[in-house]
């Protein structure tokens, strides 16, 4: 294979399986293999028929008469067909998530973060976004169920029962005066109302156990060791200048992840010359590591030794870094020096995976550095109960109870298997499970009650900052169910059994205060007060070791269990959106895999293990076969695997042994023991010789670097020069370089762009370089933007005060070896915000790669907003996934230091760029994709005949084709069980569709519309109110979901809009600009705050020497 030269753009998969990648690149829209899914995949396809595939096609046909069913009595202020927003909340991992739900005609259709909440400020996660599917999942239980008498089979039949029968069973058990033989088992509880009930039950002798597989056991135990009590840390990212994470993922997989990400992004503003520096030391590649400025892989086992070394290094700081140290040593010295230099403005964050002793040691270090009380605050936990989860589940197993009530969770699947929780539950006489699904645990229980979904009920909960969130119901319970608190109150025989009253009584509010709290979604100023901490004596530093310094010798292996970015701990297994959501780094959908570093792979290869083949992993007596996948950046010797897969009783999406649906992924819980809960040392895995197809999404939509080089060779005169380098898809440079650039070309933050610099660009741009005048020396770089001259001042001022248009020649486009800014006559037509035939608005978008962390919340948000279907694993494998917005991730070698072995990562969200010279439009034979006067690339579904020419001609590969009628599986695919979907089932799924977006049918192209429905709604509203649209009034779905504000959208013609300001940022560049398609979506180059002591290649030289090397061209 003719390997492309820019290897850094290319994925590791490419190096591994070049022929396949080659094929993937060439086939463009997925191969034609198997036009119809074969038998197996057809079945799998049907299994997707969760709530995510929905809507029985379009009913707009003239001949099918529609009915209009108006309210008999329309609720006050309800306007039919207009979305309303309500604040609410639900619990996730023991932390209430403040929500803002969009409801359409009384049904919630989209969930976002609550922008008013003082902690999260509207940040949300992909989980939050995707949970809108839950209430509409046809597989939710609809009635209480009871197991057949005498049936002890694992998949025992449950019969439908009614609530009265369940109450007859439960009430005597729970309203007795002595409850000492009654056990409760739940996950973390954030609800004050439920905690109140818990206290009442415990007062009568009942035992309440709290167990969740993803918990804070180690962190709390570490806090007990360090401070004598269990405290919850609050990392003040906004205040931090130096951040060190140790096996932690605080900005993503953390109870407070979105808020942390937001805080972190606030410190990443290179234009204001404000940049924190983050070091990530970790065994697995996390999004924190990808966002960090420096990342070093250290196995989880060696992390304690690293902390010991760090403590020693902090003692030994001298103020200078010895440049001759080996890289890893030097990194440690830099970290220590930075932390010492920024006392009170740094923080060390230890991940839950590390044992309590390491947490305590990190507390001691933070204390020593004066970070406590400044960058790290502590609060009391809302529930002072600091039960150790793993101990709790053991106590439950050994408890010998007569009655057990299991409130949510799925301990049979998640608990250490050695405990045989299923046997325990079956051995208990009376068991009730309260949950939405008949999962592994429910199947062991005598009775299953199906409580209301949190969106259907009054809820409350403590958010991470301790503030009390109030959740109002957004829809009446679809199945006439009651919520957990209502059920327990009823069964306990309490007086108050109404959800709202319970929540209100717990909150202690009334009148206006109560109404205001319900409206806001939280009680104002209810956040927990930080407590001051004093370090207890006797915290021991772990011994410094050399394990982390040295090259891995290939002998020791550890296996690390990570939460899944899709299914978390397995709870979202039946959520097809999340199952199909690619993992941010592996880009793997519908599976978990054994992740190995390239070097580890080289070693394992000797024993026959191959990527995308099953390898057997053994821990103790348990053996599990897992497909192998190479993950660059993984610590050598550290194998990673996501938990939460291999569910056998999740449903038609996630796997259901009862109806014969195979599980998704592999269950690795058997390998976890209470002792080695997070990681364990293992023997080398053994090969099985079985190949396994993983559905990875980066390959099929890879921007084709082969073709890109070819196009450039043809397009530009100077073939020998590596001009292609200038068009690197992702661009980045160091903060030092950017500061040097800004020193020469300061951005004027004070007064926009009012100076209207005159420059003639009406001539042919290709032949005539821009006049420079007082312009910066950086000129005639291929992507320097020609300066505008029309005074276009219809919108209150021109733009382009000279320096606003200097472009930062980011020194590194992922590969410093090839760095060369080629001088030449090449001029690229650039977008000029004030020129062109258009009138009025010019919609555009920018994405700041410095801020984007690849969390994928935007992808799910887009999916929810735009009714994007799920296609299933086989179709994903064929390259037919439908996500309008994808996030490309590029691995690169460390650009700044050749000694650094760890890969760097840049994420790049890509959706339709709305090119002004859109290549898709010129090839459409039926004009189904055309340009609007506001610069949108409109896609007209009803005109599309499905030639797919547009998709072939799209350089960004953002168009998606409906190979099947994904939203109407019943009529198209006669899958087994399809006929079991009643009309009511289908109607239920229809409820969550966004009625403002057309449902596409088979044979139709689709792609990002810049959320045109939101644009139109805002335009119409502004016109009705006789006003202009505000500069930042319109938010696209992806922008709304972005915790870090990386996405800006708005009117480029409005100088006040954020997007216009971002357009004038010197870091702005267009992807594949040399194609002259003039995309409306631009990126801001990534800035990495590299420690100068760790910079071997100083890209400031590129800025300094540039003017001399490339003298200003003379106009002719």
């Amino acid at each position, binding site marked *: 294979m003719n390997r492309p030269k820019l290897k850094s753009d290319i994925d590791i998969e490419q190096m591994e399986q070049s022929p396949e990648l080659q094929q993937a690149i060439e086939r463009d829209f997925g191969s034609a293999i198997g036009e119809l899914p074969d038998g197996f995949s057809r079945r799998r396809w049907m299994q997707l028929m969760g709530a995510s595939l929905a809507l029985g096609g*379009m*009913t*707009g*046909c*003239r001949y099918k*008469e*529609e*009915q*209009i*069913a*108006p*309210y*008999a*009595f*329309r609720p006050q202020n309800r*306007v*039919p*067909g*207009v979305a309303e927003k309500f604040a609410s909340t639900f619990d996730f991992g023991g932390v209430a998530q403040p929500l803002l739900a969009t409801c359409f005609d009384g049904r919630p259709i989209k969930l976002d973060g609550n922008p008013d909440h003082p902690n999260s400020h509207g940040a949300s996660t992909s989980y939050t976004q995707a949970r809108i599917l839950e209430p509409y999942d046809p597989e939710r239980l609809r009635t209480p169920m009871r197991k057949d008498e005498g049936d002890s089979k694992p998949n025992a039949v449950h019969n439908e029962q009614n609530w009265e029968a369940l109450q007859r069973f439960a009430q005597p058990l729970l309203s007795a005066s002595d409850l000492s033989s009654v056990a409760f088992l739940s996950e973390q509880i954030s609800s004050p109302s439920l905690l109140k009930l818990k206290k009442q039950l415990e007062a009568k002798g009942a035992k309440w156990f709290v167990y969740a597989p993803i918990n804070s056991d180690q962190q709390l135990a570490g806090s007990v060791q360090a401070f004598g009590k269990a405290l919850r840390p609050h990392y003040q990212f906004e205040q931090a200048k130096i951040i060190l994470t140790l096996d932690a993922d605080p900005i993503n997989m953390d109870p407070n992840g979105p808020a942390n990400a937001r805080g972190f992004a606030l410190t990443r503003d290179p234009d204001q010359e404000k940049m924190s520096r983050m070091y990530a030391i970790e065994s697995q590649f996390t999004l924190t590591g990808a966002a960090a400025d420096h990342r070093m892989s250290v196995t989880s086992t060696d992390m304690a030794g690293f902390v010991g070394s760090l403590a020693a290094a902090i003692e030994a700081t001298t103020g200078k870094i010895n440049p001759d140290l080996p890289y890893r040593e030097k990194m440690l010295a830099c970290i220590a020096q930075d932390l010492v230099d920024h006392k009170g403005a740094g923080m060390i964050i230890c991940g839950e995976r590390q044992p309590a002793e390491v947490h305590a040691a990190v507390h001691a270090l933070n204390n020593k550095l004066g970070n406590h009380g400044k960058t790290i605050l502590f609060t009391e936990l809302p529930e002072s109960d600091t039960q150790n989860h793993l101990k709790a589940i053991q106590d439950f197993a050994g408890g010998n109870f007569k009655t057990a009530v299991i409130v949510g969770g799925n301990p049979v699947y998640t608990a250490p298997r050695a405990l045989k929780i299923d046997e325990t539950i079956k051995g208990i006489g009376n068991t009730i499970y309260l949950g939405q699904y008949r999962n592994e645990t429910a199947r062991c229980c005598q009775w299953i009650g199906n409580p209301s979904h949190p969106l259907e009920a009054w809820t409350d909960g403590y958010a991470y900052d301790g503030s009390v969130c109030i959740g109002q119901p957004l829809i009446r319970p679809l199945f006439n169910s009651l919520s957990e608190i209502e059920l327990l109150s009823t069964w306990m025989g309490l007086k108050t059994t109404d959800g709202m009253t319970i929540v209100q009584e717990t909150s202690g509010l009334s009148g206006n205060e109560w109404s205001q709290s319900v409206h806001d979604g939280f009680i104002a100023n209810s956040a927990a007060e930080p407590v001051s901490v004093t370090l207890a004596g006797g915290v021991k530093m772990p011994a410094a070791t050399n394990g982390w310094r040295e090259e891995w010798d290939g002998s020791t292996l550890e296996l690390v269990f990570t939460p899944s970015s899709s299914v978390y701990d397995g709870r979202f297994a039946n959520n097809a959106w999340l199952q199909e959501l690619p993992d941010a780094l592996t880009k793997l959908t519908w599976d978990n895999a054994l992740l190995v570093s390239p070097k580890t792979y080289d070693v394992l290869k000797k024993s026959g293990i191959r990527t995308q083949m099953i390898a057997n992993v053994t821990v103790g007596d348990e053996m599990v076969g897992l497909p192998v996948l190479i993950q660059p950046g993984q610590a050598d010797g550290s194998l990673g695997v996501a938990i939460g897969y291999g569910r056998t009783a999740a449903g038609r999406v996630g796997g259901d042994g009862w109806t014969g649906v195979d599980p998704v992924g592999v269950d690795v819980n058997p390998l976890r023991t209470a002792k080695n809960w997070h990681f364990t040392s293992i023997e080398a895995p053994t090969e099985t010789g079985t190949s396994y197809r993983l559905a990875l999404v980066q390959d099929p939509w890879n921007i084709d670097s082969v073709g890109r080089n070819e196009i450039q060779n043809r397009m530009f005169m100077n073939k020998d020069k590596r001009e292609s380098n200038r068009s690197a898809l992702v661009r980045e440079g160091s903060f030092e370089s950017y500061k040097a650039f800004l020193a020469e070309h300061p951005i004027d933050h004070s007064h926009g762009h009012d100076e209207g610099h005159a420059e003639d660009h009406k001539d042919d741009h290709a032949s005539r370089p821009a006049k420079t005048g007082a312009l910066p020396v950086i000129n005639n770089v291929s992507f320097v933007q020609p300066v505008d001259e029309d005074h276009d001042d219809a919108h209150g001022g021109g733009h382009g005060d000279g320096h606003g248009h200097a472009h930062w020649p980011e020194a590194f486009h992922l590969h410093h070896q090839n760095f060369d800014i080629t001088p030449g006559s090449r001029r690229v037509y650039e977008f000029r915000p004030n020129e062109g035939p258009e009138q009025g608005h010019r919609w555009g978008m920018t994405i700041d790669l410095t801020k984007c962390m690849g969390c994928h919340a935007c992808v799910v948000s887009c999916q929810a907003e735009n009714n994007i279907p799920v296609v299933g694993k086989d179709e994903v494998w064929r390259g037919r996934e439908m996500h309008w917005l994808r996030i490309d991730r590029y691995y690169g070698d460390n650009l700044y230091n050749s000694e650094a072995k760890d890969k760097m990562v840049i994420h790049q969200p890509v959706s339709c760029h709305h090119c002004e010279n859109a290549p898709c439009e010129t090839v459409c034979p039926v004009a189904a994709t*055309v340009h*609007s*006067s*506001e610069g*949108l690339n*409109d*896609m*007209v*579904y*009803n005109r599309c005949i499905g030639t797919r020419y547009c998709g072939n001609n799209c350089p960004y590969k953002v168009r998606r084709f409906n190979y099947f009628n994904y939203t109407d599986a019943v009529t198209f695919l006669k899958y087994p069980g399809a006929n079991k979907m009643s009309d009511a089932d289908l109607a239920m799924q229809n409820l969550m569709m966004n009625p*403002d*977006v*057309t*449902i596409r049918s088979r044979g139709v192209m689709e792609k990002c*519309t810049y959320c*045109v*429905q939101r*644009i*139109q709604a805002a335009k*119409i509203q502004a*016109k*009705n109110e006789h006003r202009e649209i505000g500069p930042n009034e319109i938010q696209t779905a992806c922008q709304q979901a972005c915790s870090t504000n990386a996405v800006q959208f708005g009117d480029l013609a409005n100088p006040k809009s954020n997007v216009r300001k971002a357009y004038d940022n010197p870091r702005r560049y267009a992807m594949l600009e040399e194609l002259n398609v003039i995309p409306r979506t631009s990126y801001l180059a990534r800035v990495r705050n590299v420690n100068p002591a760790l910079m071997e290649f100083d890209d400031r030289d590129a800025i300094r020497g540039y003017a001399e090397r490339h003298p200003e061209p003379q106009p002719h």
Partner: protein
Amino acid sequence: MQEFHFPNWVNKFTLMMLAGGLLVAGYLATCLFAAINPSIINIGHQPTQPVPFSHKLHAGRLKMDCRYCHNTVEKTGHAAVPPTATCGNCHGADLTKPGTTLGVVHPDSPLLKPVRVSLETNDPVLWKRVHDLPDFVYFNHSAHVNRGVSCVSCHGRIDKMEVVTQVEPMSMKWCLDCHRNPTPNIRDPQLVTKLDFKSDDPNYHETWAEKLGVNPNTNCSTCHR
């Protein structure tokens, strides 16, 4: 074996078959045209409603304003078929129950039974949709009514209809005709519900179109999203 030849008299059948084929094709084409042409299949669409509500009586003789019932027409996309409670304002009373504040017009009429049932059970009256655009078309009433496009431009003289009938084809061409030349349909937004309004001023429409700055666009995404 003797070769078979078609006799000469077959020749005239060849012609006749060709001609017949053309006729059949023409016939089919006409049928197809008739079956999909919006002005043929849409105009005159007149479904029977569960309650024989007479616009002629209410909007015509009683001169009720359109917006009494279709009260969201200025605010949102849907003009909104009114809730049954609106009917109940006049027709809701049950004379057997004392102290009612609702109107008592035709309290016993069998034709109004669905209304009374709906008021009692809280279930909707299931009206039939007359003007039904395809689901991939997003029409917004408020955007038009606030720009001085009268109800009559699309719905015709509703105030003269005993049973509501579709009078315009509501095809894309028909929409575009107006989007390209909106002036004849523009009037004072205060008068949009005056269905019989005619201006003597020959420049009336031009004046108002200019005053309101009406400049509709014909982008696809204006209606298709």
